[in-house]
């Protein structure tokens, strides 16, 4: 560094952010840091796979969360103990992929990708855009790797060989020396930018989906209708289950399940379709997917004075004692019902009903319930508990359908990201760049220098090129070996061509491209 520059630098006002910026850049472009990030994310992902995670619907309400977390506690507390399970819950290990710190790691990874890509961009652009047809003589030194020399090949013929090998050829003549430059897959070199843009775009799309998207699991019993979004939402859509079918195979497994789904907006039918798992309905910016199903019971609850308290289906969307289980708060009464379906092949279904009443609050603040009554009822039967002022008629046992309603403004970005990702990878790995420089001097000696990406099998490709050059060679002198070795080159092109072309250079067997040029 010159004195003048030192003075100039010393005189410039120091940017207070320069050092932290450099440090951050250094960190984000460090391959060790990138690998460390990936390892950490991988370890967390393994934790998320091995530790049972809370399902998405656990976060709908506090009650759902408590119920699902209770199931996890039943599973883990006997093994790990309550303090450790409490700690795991606080750390978010039962919902790893929705924790803020996991999201922060993904954001950090995206930042690394962006900074790394920006860091490499000038060099990549330079490599793709700056083309030097004429290289200094030492560049062609046959003692360097991936160099060759031969006689008897004219510049025009050599250019023809390059073109046949799909090189884009440029030429220049300087002081009677002809220089050829062949470039193949010049622009795909930049494809790595597409790959990395795809990765970042995918994370952006996920953020857009999470922030602006809508997803709701809807349980709709036979013949019932439910709004897709909250009541009062302008232009809200209502779904009606016009019929659900789940035919079984002879072995008892379900062969298929489908819902005849009607979609209404402002009271008008706008779409109707039988949807199944791999055949959703797209309408009005939403997609409706057949996602799950389960049993439901059709109940009529009547007060002893004759008034109707409940008339409709209750989905049994949980499991207790390996049986379908559901709950219902009796409208107008401070009573909750727990419903457990016991269904055995060849026997009528039986629904066990437990009625509970809130009688106080437990020390931990949760409501305390006491059982009012316990009973069982078959389809068509009525339970009339003496401890309650209502009767429960079980009209029938059927099924509810589980529909996922989704509106995802990030979906287009996701597909674009996937497209960029795969196109970038294919171009990068399957269309790697090859460059070759040829110099034919006035005496007719041809010298060749090769450079390619690491993905290129140099031995085969450079060998093939040399074989082609040997094949068009006009040999002025008696060189019996040339003809024989040219034929042999088919079997071992690099070695044979090297011998035939009087390669005075190192063999092209090196697997990696040189950084020449």
């Amino acid at each position, binding site marked *: 560094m010159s004195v003048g520059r030192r003075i100039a630098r010393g005189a410039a006002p120091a940017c207070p952010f320069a050092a932290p910026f450099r440090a951050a850049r250094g960190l984000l472009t460090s*391959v060790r840091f990138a690998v460390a990030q990936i390892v950490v994310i*991988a370890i967390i992902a393994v934790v998320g796979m091995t530790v049972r995670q809370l399902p998405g619907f656990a976060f709908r309400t506090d009650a759902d969360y408590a119920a699902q977390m209770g199931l996890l506690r039943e599973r883990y507390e006997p093994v790990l103990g309550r303090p450790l399970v409490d700690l795991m819950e606080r750390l978010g290990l039962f919902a790893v992929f929705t924790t803020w710190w996991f999201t922060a790691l993904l954001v950090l990874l995206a930042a690394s990708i962006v900074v790394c890509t920006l860091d490499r961009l000038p060099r990549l652009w330079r490599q793709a855009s700056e083309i030097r047809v004429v290289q200094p003589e030492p560049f062609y030194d046959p003692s360097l790797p991936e160099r060759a020399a031969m006689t008897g090949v004219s510049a025009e013929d050599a250019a023809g060989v390059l073109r046949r090998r799909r090189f884009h050829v440029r030429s220049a003549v300087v002081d009677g020396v002809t220089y050829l430059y062949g470039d193949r897959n010049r622009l795909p070199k930049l494809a790595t930018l597409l790959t990395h843009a795809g990765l970042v775009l995918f994370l952006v799309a996920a953020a857009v989906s999470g922030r602006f998207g809508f997803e709701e699991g809807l349980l709709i019993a036979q013949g019932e209708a439910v709004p897709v979004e909250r009541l009062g939402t302008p232009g809200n859509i209502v779904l009606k289950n016009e019929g659900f079918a789940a035919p079984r195979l002879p*072995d008892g497994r379900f062969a298929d399940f489908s819902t005849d789904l009607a979609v209404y907006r402002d009271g008008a039918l706008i779409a109707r379709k039988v949807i199944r*798992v*791999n055949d959703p309905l797209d309408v009005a910016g939403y997609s409706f997917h057949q996602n799950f199903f389960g049993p439901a019971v059709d109940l009529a609850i009547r007060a002893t004075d004759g008034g109707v308290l409940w008339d409709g289906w209750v989905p049994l969307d949980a499991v207790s004692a390996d049986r379908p289980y559901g709950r219902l708060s009796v409208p107008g009464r401070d009573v909750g019902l727990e419903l457990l379906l016991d269904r055995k092949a060849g026997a009528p279904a039986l629904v066990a009903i437990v009625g509970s009443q809130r009688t106080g609050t437990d020390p931990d603040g949760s409501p305390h319930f006491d059982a009012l009554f316990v009973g069982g009822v078959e389809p068509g039967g009525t339970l009339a508990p003496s401890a309650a002022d209502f009767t429960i008629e079980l009209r029938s046992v059927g099924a509810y359908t589980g529909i996922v309603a989704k509106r995802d403004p990030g979906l287009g970005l996701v597909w674009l990201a996937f497209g960029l990702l*795969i196109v970038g*990878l294919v171009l990068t*790995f399957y269309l790697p760049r090859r460059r070759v420089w040829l110099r034919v001097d006035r005496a007719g000696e041809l010298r060749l220098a090769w450079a390619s990406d*690491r993905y290129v099998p140099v031995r085969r490709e450079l060998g093939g090129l040399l074989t082609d050059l040997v094949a068009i060679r006009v040999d002025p002198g008696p060189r019996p070996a040339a003809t024989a070795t040219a034929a042999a080159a088919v079997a071992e092109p690099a070695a044979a061509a090297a011998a035939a072309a009087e390669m005075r250079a190192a063999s092209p067997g090196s*697997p990696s491209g040189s950084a020449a040029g």
Partner: protein
Amino acid sequence: MLKMSEYSFIAAILSVALAIVFYAVAVVSVRVQRGRAAVAAGGAATFDGGTSVAVTSGSSTFGTYGTLVAWLSFAFLLASLTFRTIATGHGPFANMYEFSISFATGIIGVYLFFERRYHQRILGLIVLPIALLMLLYATTIPATADPLVPALQNNLLLTVHVAVAIVAYGTFSVSFAAAVLYLLQSYGVPRLPRAELLDEISYRAVVIGFPFMTLVIILGAVWANVAWGSYWSWDPKETASLVTWLIYGAYLHARVVRGWRGNRAAWLLVVGFGATLFTYFGNLFFGGLHSYSGLN
């Protein structure tokens, strides 16, 4: 047709085992010959791993037999899968039994591709036993040809998604084998192929496999979006495949951008193959959306 499929499957098991024997004899005899050559040359003989391990001398006969029998096993496996496809009416990827046979087919197919290209039969001594174990595993699980469960009733995506996965897993098996040989050599096992060649083979296998693995994940996301309305659910199998993808992505970055080679890169490939197996078997242990293996 199912019987034909089973017969072909059994023939494939026997032929893979036989190929392993031939390869073992060929590789051992080559090592013995080279050892003798080294002694005869006063210890000056060196092994050029750039040419075939199953050299052109008498020992190559076993190598050639091994290759022929390996091709035969590949043909038997293809026949088994074809017969099963005809019998069931869908691609042979619907349960663990079918996928295990497909996985072994992919491993052997990719290995044979690399054998033709690099002439390193010693790789077969690691790759083929993996395929054999996969086939033996398939014999322990139910082989019933059941109708597709509703989630899998998408013949196009089922076929493409899993077929692409098989290619990816096969290439990762080859990269694992080359990495293991690399590590063995670095820990002093003599007369193995050149370290640079092993490094190149493992690298090229990943270069082929990584875009396929990417496509597996993308096709899975597309399918999940069609089937369940969510392109990503952090399902255990999804997550395991993402972890596998990240490991191989880290390997490529470390090697291409920063020139990582040697033992570090080889260990990364070993870990990557562990993740591949974890992805393959993970749904047996963790359930999730991919719980249609027939074993859950």
